[in-house]
């Protein structure tokens, strides 16, 4: 099957074919031969070039969280044939961009108003988690289309904060 994958602002197209526990995965010009079993729910034991890896995978909607060697990765996966065009445009950074909470926390301040023009790296709002305040910045030039969060609100990881278009 074909998969569209987004990791750290990079978008990749993958081709996966399966034969029992063997997977052939083509990423750009490379092809991987992976042996994979799932001994426990959420645990993927992979053998790649003879090396053993254990990945812990959890997902909510399209976002897969992968823990590998205690490094955490967040990936968005979709089947390009099943995904609406607008959403693909979103993933590609065109059109509106949804700003989501990267971690659970509390919205301390909102620094912009609806309709306001913003520059890349401009502060949008301040999120507090574990006594640390972090400024969430705009990924691009655009206009604040919608503010979904309000000051004082507790938000979950992945919750929509605002939309830049």
């Amino acid at each position, binding site marked *: 099957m074909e998969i569209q994958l987004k990791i750290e602002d990079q978008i990749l197209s993958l081709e996966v074919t399966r034969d029992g526990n063997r997977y052939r995965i083509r990423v750009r010009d490379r092809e991987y031969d992976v042996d*994979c079993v799932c001994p426990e729910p959420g645990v993927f034991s*992979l053998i790649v070039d003879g090396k053993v890896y254990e990945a812990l995978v959890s997902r909510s*909607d399209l976002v897969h969280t992968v823990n590998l060697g*205690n490094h955490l990765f967040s990936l968005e996966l979709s089947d390009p044939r099943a995904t609406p065009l*607008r959403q693909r445009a979103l993933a590609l950074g065109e059109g509106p961009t949804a700003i989501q909470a990267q971690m659970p926390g509390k919205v301390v301040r909102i620094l912009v108003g609806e309709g306001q023009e913003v520059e890349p790296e401009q502060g949008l709002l301040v999120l507090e*988690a*574990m006594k640390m305040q972090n400024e969430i910045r705009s990924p691009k030039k655009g206009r604040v289309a919608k503010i979904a969060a309000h000051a004082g609100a*507790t938000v979950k*990881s992945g919750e929509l904060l605002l939309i830049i278009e």
Partner: protein
Amino acid sequence: MFRKILIANRGEIAVRVIRACREMGISAVAIYSEADREALHVRRADEAYCVGPASSLESYLAVDRILDVARRCGAEAVHPGYGFLSENHRFVQACEESGIRFIGPTSGAMKVMGGKVSARQVAVRAQVPVVPGTLEPVASVNEALAEAERIGYPVMLKAAAGGGGKGLRLVPSAPEFPSAFEMAASEAENAFNDRSLYLEKYLDRAHHIEIQVLADSRGDVVYLGERECSIQRRHQKVVEECPSPLVTRPLRKRMGETAVRLARQVGYLNAGTMEFLVDSRRNFYFLEMNTRLQVEHPVTEFVTGIDLVKAQIRIAAGEALPWRQQDIRLHGAAIECRVYAEDPERNFLPSPGKITHLEEPDGPGIRNDSGVYPGYTVPIHYDPLISKLVAYGKNRWEAVERMRRALSEYKIGGIQTTLPFLEAVLSDEQFLRGDLDTGFADRLLAARPLAAERDHLRDVAILAAAIAFSRSQKSPLGSSERAANPWKMAARLDQLATRLPH
């Protein structure tokens, strides 16, 4: 002996104290905030009472509510753990006045030794060498500047009421001084409601080494060796070990006897720790005293064979120390790693959230003091410590090997932790040689030891996610959630659609 003890804390340290209570046949009472109903310490306790909302000011720091719970449930003693109220002499005094035994020093001794400036004055009177600096808080930025000139740069600005790395600033030279002074003072005001600061000379490449003492109500005091705590980030310890690779037998004896003399000077009671800076020529300077159980106490427990929490409870109940100094022996070596829900690749940003998967290390010589379980959500309100992983070996080398093995077994899914950083520390050549100083962690991080490993694992993560996704799409009929439940699928798509702009 007490029949019931209230533990005025949360997380792993509350679980640790509950374990000691259970071994002694004492009933353990937990307190919790509204955010902590599902916390492990509540699940492990015999009784548990909610003391207020998530904010620690209204729960774990609410003296009146905690004492009210203690009275109503019939607890005879309170164990404060570390942090929260453990070094608040007003809380100790409130316990004393309501007839509830505080498991720790008296309020008087805590007040003298808990104040950084007054503790330095006591040390000077007891002829204990202190780090050069001021013996009184500095009144103004101008006075502080003059003192800094006298001591010589670099200097440390420290909050007189300080602790936990707050209100601390390293000032390399005079031009940076005024703004550093202002930042340290306002941080101190926020954290401790007290702006006063004092000055110390910053000792470059020094070891941070501390001595554990135990004192009973008859005035007997013993020291239980040292702990090497030089590996720190933002003045918070990350990796600790016992014994210190720097400390020789004669130095241990001199530092230990100094710590005992200080404890006697103030009539200290129960467990306490004297912190020292030790330079490369093995000169030591008193830094401050922690008038409570330390986070890193397990390394001392491994090497001395003494259960410090049980010793604390026995001392508080009025029992005499069962050892004299010559009975205290150190065997082998132990190392502790503090595992935090923080992202070492993003400047240690907190990474709270749900632990989707948990495999804890065990096997020979391993102890993991943990406050979490699979499915637990690390809350956003408190310190992000997940567990303290401790390894013991017949010598430092075996302890290091076991720690490295245990770190490789430890798997925490769903949140980012500091485990990769700890693995980098434990494989660093300077660390392996035991060549430690308080600048170690910053130098290691500047070399970005995790970047290459992460880049490699990133490719494998892509493969794992692709496989997981393809299995969820194409698994045999019936077992796939999507195939089995079209209603749920439709609802999800619906939900997704509402999150997209029109």
